[in-house]
């Protein structure tokens, strides 16, 4: 096996696959994907439901089909893979330390690295759920793996905490497999997943969703026997007199995803406390030269299609870096979250980028606005550089906006760019 690679991609989910393919297509010689699982595809392998590919292929595909398309493409372009291999450490000078059963301890060097480790589910410990600690409390994704890949039912009667997409999709999946989903509880006053999933996964199967309601306590010693639900006020304080004990044998948690950046931190990559992912520029390069990041490791997307697109951008940047030893520095301008914007990715825009191609910004709103909004990118003087109308703004749904090459001149003069989501006047 080779010791030095032009590009090493860590993770083979949709972001990693796209990055590896793009690296090859943009002239990188040796490209390697390191994957800890026994097969490529990442979490898509367990996402057997439809709804993938609508943006990129204009087709409604199940997750495994979407993954296979890119797995075959990666194989076709000659990407090397190292399976069943765990990356232990990455250094800022791009040495990768990994381990697997057949080769033992491995040390590799990359001219450029793409971090594509995806994200992890928030667990019970992270939301401080009180009560005893019986078996039967799972994250929704773990249950999804049991049911869809391993063929094991984790329980018979479920309560699901959180109206995120995975939770709602699992509510439907468990019902199809003969289980009873008694309730979906959401602490926020709004749905955190997509409306279409509420319709197709909950309404279709008569599953009740209760908002501003959460799990107050888990009941049961060896196994979950019930959960106690309670209503909460705006500050998440329990409202007296609203308790209900719901008998069940399992509790699924669908309470958010966190970008997985333990390796990134070891490599000296700085993380944005809002996204929990690296600060990146428009090529998805982190603060460490030659280390790029793509997909859910940067921020949690709601559509896989956007992850693939981000992977392509990062892979191309990595290939260019690997061949040039360095991308010409180029002046950059900061992109900041303004009015009603929680965060915007990328964090920095290379001014020269707009000469050739458009740059896509993705952001999340702070509070929902259920009427027409105007999304703007403004410079330090309030001059509008780019704008777009949207029928509404919801924190659960990413807003996407492109800055086009026609704004090249305006961006050259900018000292700072701010992104805003405002009610349309």
């Amino acid at each position, binding site marked *: 096996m080779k010791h030095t690679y032009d590009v090493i991609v860590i993770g083979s989910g949709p972001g990693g696959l796209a990055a590896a393919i793009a690296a090859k297509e943009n002239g990188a010689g040796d490209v390697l994907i390191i994957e800890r699982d*026994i*097969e490529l595809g990442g979490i898509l*392998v367990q996402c*057997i*439901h*439809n709804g993938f590919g609508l943006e990129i292929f204009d087709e*409604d*595909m*199940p*997750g*495994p*089909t979407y*993954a*296979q398309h890119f797995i075959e493409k990666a194989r076709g372009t000659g990407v090397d893979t190292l399976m069943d291999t765990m990356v232990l450490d990455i250094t800022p000078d791009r040495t990768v330390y990994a381990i697997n059963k057949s080769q033992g301890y491995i040390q590799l060097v990359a001219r450029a690295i793409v971090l594509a480790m995806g994200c992890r589910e928030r667990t019970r410990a992270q939301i401080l759920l009180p009560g005893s600690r019986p078996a039967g409390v799972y994250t929704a994704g773990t249950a999804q793996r049991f*049911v*869809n*890949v*391993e*063929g094991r039912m984790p329980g018979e009667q479920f309560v699901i905490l959180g109206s995120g997409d995975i939770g709602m999709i699992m509510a439907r999946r468990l019902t*199809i*497999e*003969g289980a009873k989903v008694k309730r979906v509880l959401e602490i926020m006053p709004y749905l955190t997943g*997509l*409306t*279409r999933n*509420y*319709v*197709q996964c909950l*309404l*279709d199967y008569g599953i009740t969703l209760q908002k501003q309601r959460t799990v107050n306590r888990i009941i049961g010693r060896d196994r979950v026997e019930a959960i106690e639900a309670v209503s909460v006020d705006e500050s998440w304080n329990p409202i007296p007199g609203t308790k209900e004990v719901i008998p069940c044998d399992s509790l699924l948690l669908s309470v958010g995803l966190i970008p997985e950046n333990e390796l990134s931190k070891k490599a000296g990559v700085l993380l944005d406390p809002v996204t929990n992912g690296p600060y990146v520029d428009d090529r998805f390069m982190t603060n460490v030269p030659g280390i790029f990041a793509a997909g859910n490791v940067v921020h949690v997307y709601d559509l896989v299609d956007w992850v693939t697109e981000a992977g392509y951008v990062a892979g191309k940047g990595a290939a260019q870096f690997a061949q040039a030893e360095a991308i010409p520095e180029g002046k950059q301008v900061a992109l900041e979250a303004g009015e009603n914007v929680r965060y915007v990715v990328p964090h920095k825009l290379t001014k020269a980028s707009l000469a050739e191609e458009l740059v896509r910004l993705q952001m999340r709103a702070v509070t929902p606005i259920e009427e027409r909004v105007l999304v703007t990118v403004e410079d330090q003087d309030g001059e509008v550089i780019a704008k777009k109308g949207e*029928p*509404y703004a919801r924190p659960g*749904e990413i807003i996407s906006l492109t800055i086009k090459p026609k704004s090249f001149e305006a961006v050259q003069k900018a000292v700072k760019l701010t992104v805003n989501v405002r009610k349309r006047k």
Partner: protein
Amino acid sequence: MVETSEIICVACPKGCLLQVKHEGKDIVEIVGAGCRRGKEYAICELQDPRRMVASTVRVRGGLHSLVPVYTREGFPKPLIPQLARELRQVEVTAPVKINQVVLEDALGTGIDIIASRDMPKIT
């Protein structure tokens, strides 16, 4: 008698709330659709609601013990529970190829159930 049903359109992620006035299955008026697709969805929803269904079937000798499958097209909504029971009886043998039919003409609907990925033989 004209009734009004509320339907949330799922043709796109926007999720318009449609007010559909209808006499039985005959539509009188649709209010609230943001586009033409919403009207089509409302008509479908009232007259013949269908959904894509994804599930798994058992596979013998495969890398995993299950292979994911889905309906080649929208499946009649009222028949979904029956389809789920039917799929639990199906078993195929590895290797399975993507798009391979695992259940032909499911429940006499003319709709095939196909594998959504390759499932290689275990080595």
